[in-house]
């Protein structure tokens, strides 16, 4: 088995163990189409944000009311990629943004990003998050879809050490390792997904 195939398999298994949904894509266009599709297929894009169906205190409830429509955010993409995504979204009536996350603190349906690297042994995405827009996009969204180029896969975290060092030396910097969706087991050790951040993480493996 080629080394690249082995890393892809390892990554897929490990990411799957933390409930990430891993799918191969052949092109960036396919990734964009996938992302727009899950709004419909998976009921991801709902007007009501997760938790807003509950009886909440007045202040928390008020924040729920701030969301006007289905929102997809994709900060930091190359210009033509964002334009393509925006066009796809427009066809489906989805509001597509690349900035202004702070106007959507109540919630965002989908955050779309491209990872800087992946760590196979833990199914981890490495994301340069120095842009506040990108950090918020990946935290405020209900579903995070992230494209991972298979050429950026490394086996262990130590294999990513130089990369981490390079980012941290170039401060101010904010680098994130993301492994699965936001989770907690703080009540009776029962696993619950999506306590603060995304409820779902989709990783689209792009062979390059």
């Amino acid at each position, binding site marked *: 088995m080629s080394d690249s195939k082995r890393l892809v398999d390892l990554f897929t298994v490990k990411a799957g163990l933390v409930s990430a949904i891993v799918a191969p894509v052949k092109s960036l266009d396919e990734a964009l189409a996938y992302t727009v599709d899950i709004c419909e297929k998976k009921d991801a894009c709902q007007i009501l944000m997760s938790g807003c169906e509950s009886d909440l205190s007045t202040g928390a409830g008020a924040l729920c009311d701030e969301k006007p429509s289905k929102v997809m955010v994709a900060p930091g993409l190359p210009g033509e990629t964002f334009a393509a995504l925006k066009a796809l979204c427009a066809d489906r009536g989805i509001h597509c943004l690349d900035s202004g996350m702070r106007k959507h603190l109540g919630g965002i349906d989908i955050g779309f990003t491209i990872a800087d690297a992946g760590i196979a042994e833990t199914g981890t995405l490495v994301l340069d998050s120095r842009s506040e827009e990108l950090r918020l996009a990946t935290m405020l969204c209900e579903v995070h879809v992230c494209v991972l180029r298979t050429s950026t896969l490394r086996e262990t975290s130590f294999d990513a050490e130089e990369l981490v060092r390079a980012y941290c030396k170039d401060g101010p910097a904010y680098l994130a390792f993301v492994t699965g969706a*936001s989770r907690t087991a703080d009540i009776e050790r029962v696993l619950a997904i999506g306590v603060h951040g995304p409820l779902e993480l989709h990783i689209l493996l792009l062979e390059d």
Partner: protein
Amino acid sequence: MQNARDLKQYKGELTGALNNEFLRTAMDNFAMAYRVSRANAFKGMDLDGLIADIAKGKDYAMAHMEELLEQFTRNAKALGVTVHVAKTAHEANEIIGRIAQKANVKRIVKSKSMTAEETLLNHHLEDLGLEVTETDLGEWIIQLRHEGPTHMVMPAIHLSRDQVADLFSEVTGAKQSNDIQKLVKVARRELRRKYVEADMGISGGNFAIAETGTIALCTNEGNARLVTTLPRVHVALVGLDKLTPSINDALRVIRALPRNATGQAITSYVSWITGPGECQSSANGKKEMHVVFLDNGRRAIAKDPLFSSVLRCIRCGACANVCPVYRLVGGHQLGHIYIGAIGLILTYFYHGREKAKNLVQNCINCGACKAVCAGGIDLPRLIKEVHARIQDEEGHPLQSQLLAKVLKSRKLFHALLRSAKAVQRPVTGGTPYLRHLPMIFAKDQGFRALPAIAETPFRDRFEAIKPRVSKPKLRVALFSGCVQDFVYPEQAEAAVKILARHNVAVEYPMDQSCCGLPVQMMGERESSRSVAAQNVAAFDPASCDYILTLCASCASHLKHGYPDILAGDSRLEVKVRQFADRVIDFSSFVHDVLKVKPEEFKKDGKKTTYHSPCHLCRGLNVTEAPRALMTIGGLEYLPADEEDVCCGFGGTYSMKFPELSAELLKKKLANAEKTGAELLLTDCPGCIMQLRGGLEAKGSAMQVRHMAEALAERLK
């Protein structure tokens, strides 16, 4: 939190915890599940190597704390971070309070930080009129309940979904169901609002990386990312022990931290924050960032030759996860703010003697914590050392002083045991148990029958049974320990019988005394040292090949305890090393050295299960030999659940905390009986005292034997 005035009040609180049904079930389930998930998480990894590397890395960092602090500060400052160093908890709180006031902050969100718990930061900030909200779900829950954490990683593990539902009903003003998934979503929305409103975020720091000036944070919920992103001010409160030279060090610790904490390969999020980045809610578009380092004794601890190793702690909580006492009573009783074995030690240094004095006595010395510690800290030893220091500072209790005095003189000790035999007749009723102990001795001891002193101690029988060997293949000196000398001499006799078959010469040095573990456990250092020196002198280690003992506790104390206890005594250093090198336990000797064979034994296939003594399986790392011996000896071995969990004896522990001892014994016996075995074997007379006493008290037919007896009885 420890508020008990004295041991009596503390024991009252322990009883309260024991009676908490929910807590007991939750803790049991957790302990069982943790075992499995941790093993899976480390599968295929060189765990010992990883632990050794972490220990080495942390030791290096702590020895270079000032240089790392200087390097971190330089790198962080260059990026615009303000770095503060607080000498005390109070000073740290004041610094953070001032930062908040200067930046005109009204509302604060926090991500989980044990260091902020240590300084009781929230109280200080609230007194300044600031609104502080914890955003880690467990921390938020306990903040709303106005209590401290009961676990370092799962702070609200002591609470049920019903309690959380009631709490959230209060917070939202609307009735909430006890559906955990729904409760988590309610927290998501309620806390989202808090992030939006906050002007300042406070985080802890798993690492302060000197080479880049980076603060790295591990969370599962992702709350630390929001806390460090949305508000315009970020303050990281970090212990000086989190300083580490490089990214490589952090990556190494991250391999162990989540695996050891919860059995996860990695936390959902690891954030590497280097300097203040862009922040759109700030007037100048840039975050205001502060790092507050907390000393609070860490600098002094780093210089202490014995205690510096506590700064290796990576706050994974594993020492609590495996502690049998924690499992019974939970973190409010087995900790002040820091929980579990490490908590017993840190409480003394960070919160003082008054908070630590009862706590440190509640260690049964089973070594389970040491065996899982990611930093390889010798936790049980340091707990005993803290106990001893507190006694030195506050005065020794009468009982402990008395025992210390008696043990220091072998002749006095043995004379007392002999006279006890003479006067015990009225309380034994002719049985091998003390049946009618006056209440003063038997308080809360009803859960087990205590054995009587034997008619003739082993030392008086030895000459008659000593093997007569002309050309011995090995020379063994026997260390019987008090229990086999005076209570169960038949166990040592059984061993001699097997040794004689294999042409082994046996000596029994008559000047040997108690190994000293009981006084070590009670914090009587002086007596412990004196007894150790007497025993080393009694054995002339160069004159024998092995020092054999049938007591696992004695063996591990002689082998690992003595060199520490007698360290620095130049007259004994060589001898104690020789002595320790020769110490071996019975099962290892018979299996690994004598290499006994099945054809030596009559096979009867008796259904047998095993209790693995703490000081054998963890103290000496012996696990295979006794299991193999049962099969070689012709027995049918039926493994029991949790064979390596403490039986609750713990020597003097079971006298001090009988209620806890009884609970541990109950679990142990239930697991043994569940196998359907008729015979329960073990390798420690202390455990036998506990197990046999428990079975006798409940009228069970299961028999308890030492491995040596089971084998000797079956010799052809």
